[in-house]
C-alpha cells in the first residue's frame, strides 16, 4: 500500500513529463530518445528503459499516444496536440445540451444578453 502511494504519483509525473516531450516533438520519439531527453532535463540520471516503456504503454491505453515501427524500435507520437486536448476538455465540460448525462456541474451557465442585464441589475441591488 505504501509502495503504491509512493509509486502512483511518480508514474503520474513521468506520464506528464513524457507527454510534454512528445507534445514538443510532433515528429515523435523513440523510447531511447525519451530516456536521454528526460536524463538531460533531470541532470543526468537515466531512467530504466522498461520504466519509460511502462509509461508509454499507460499513455497508449489512455489513448494519448500511438506508435509505429521505426527499424528495430518504435516511434511514439502524441495522438492529439495539447491545444486539442484542452479544447476537447472544455467542450466536454461546458457543452450545453438537453442531454444531461453526467452529474458534472459547471460554476455558472452561459446566459442570454437579456439575462446578463438582469444579472447585473441583481448585482446593483447588492452594491446599493
Amino acid at each position, binding site marked *: 500500500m505504501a509502495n503504491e502511494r509512493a509509486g502512483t504519483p511518480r508514474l503520474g509525473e513521468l506520464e506528464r513529463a513524457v507527454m510534454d516531450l512528445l507534445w514538443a516533438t510532433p515528429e515523435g520519439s523513440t523510447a531511447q530518445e525519451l530516456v536521454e531527453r528526460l536524463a538531460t532535463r533531470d541532470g543526468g540520471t537515466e531512467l530504466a528503459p522498461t520504466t519509460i516503456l511502462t509509461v508509454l504503454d499507460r499513455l497508449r491505453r489512455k489513448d494519448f499516444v500511438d506508435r509505429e515501427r521505426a527499424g528495430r524500435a518504435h516511434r511514439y507520437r502524441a495522438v492529439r496536440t495539447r491545444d486539442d486536448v484542452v479544447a476537447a476538455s472544455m467542450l466536454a465540460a*461546458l457543452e450545453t445540451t438537453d442531454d444531461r448525462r*453526467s452529474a458534472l456541474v459547471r*460554476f455558472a*451557465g452561459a446566459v442570454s444578453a437579456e439575462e446578463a442585464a438582469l444579472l447585473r441589475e441583481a448585482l446593483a441591488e447588492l452594491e446599493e
Partner: protein
Amino acid sequence: MPVDAWLLAVLAILLAWPVPVALARAAWPKRHTRAAIALWQAVGIAGGLSLIGAPLAIGVAPLDGHLRTGLAELGRDAMHLRVPSALATPQEIALALAGMLTVRLVGVTSLSALRIERDLRRQRNAVDLAAEHADRQLRVLEHAAPAAYCLPGTRPRIVITEGTIAALAPDELEAVLAHERAHARWRHELVVQPFVAWESALPLPPARRAAAAVTTLVEMLADDHAARDVGRPALARALVAIGGTAGPIPNQSVNSSMITAASATAGTPTLTRVQRLVRKTPPPSLTERLIGPAVWLAAVALVAGPTWFLLR
C-alpha cells in the same frame, strides 16, 4: 382486487408525474435546500418502489393478501417451473410488467453510471496530462474562456481556466474555488447522478424537471458553502462575471457521450442563484420555520410507506 395494491398504483402515478412537476415549480426549495433535496430523493425512491411494487402486488394478489408471502409462494412454484393456478392472464401481465420495469430501471441506471464513470475517467486523464497542476486537486487549463468545474470522484479535480483567473478579482476566484471544493468534498455528484439516471430510464418531462431542479439545488448548496467561507458579495460578483460574460461555447460537434453542464434554460438558475445571494431575507415567519421539519417528515413518510407495504 386488493385496495392497497391500487393505492400503491395511484402513488406510483402521482410520484411519476404531478408531484415532481409541482415540486419543480415550488418556491420554498431555494430557502430549504437540504430538506428539498431529501424530499426529491424520497420522491425518487418511493416512485421506484411503488412503480415496481404496484404491478407485483396486483399480480400476486390472488395468492395471499400480503406481497411478501405472495411472492414467496410464486417463487416456490417458479422453482418447480410452474405458474400458480390461481393466477389468470391479467395477473401474469402485471407480473411481466413488474419484471420489465425492474430490468429497465436497474439496466438504465447501471448503464448511466458506467457511462458517467467512463467520461469522467477520460476527463481526469486529459486534465491531469494537459493542464497545469496548481496543487493536488486544482488544474488550470490554458484557455481564454472563463470556466470552472469539478470532476467528481474519490480523488476529485477542480478545473479552472486561465480565462477564469483573468476575469475575476482574488476574492471572487476564492469564491469560485470554495464553491467547487464544496461539490467535491460533499460528493454532490452522488445526489445528482441518480436523477440523471432516472431521467434516462423515464424520459418524460417530470423526470427532466426533477434532474434540473436537483442540479440547481446542489448548486445552491455549494453556493451556501462558498458564501459562508468568502461572503455573499464576492460569490454573487463571481457568478455574474462568469455567467454574465461567458457566452455560448462555439457549437462544435462533440462526442455525444460528452459531459453536459446545463440545459437550454441554463441561465435561469444562475439568475435565481444571484438573486438568492443579494436579496435581504426578512426574519422567517412561523410558517417558514415549519416548512423545513414538515418537508423532512414528508420525505421520511414517503419512503417508509411503500417500504412497509412491500415488506410487511
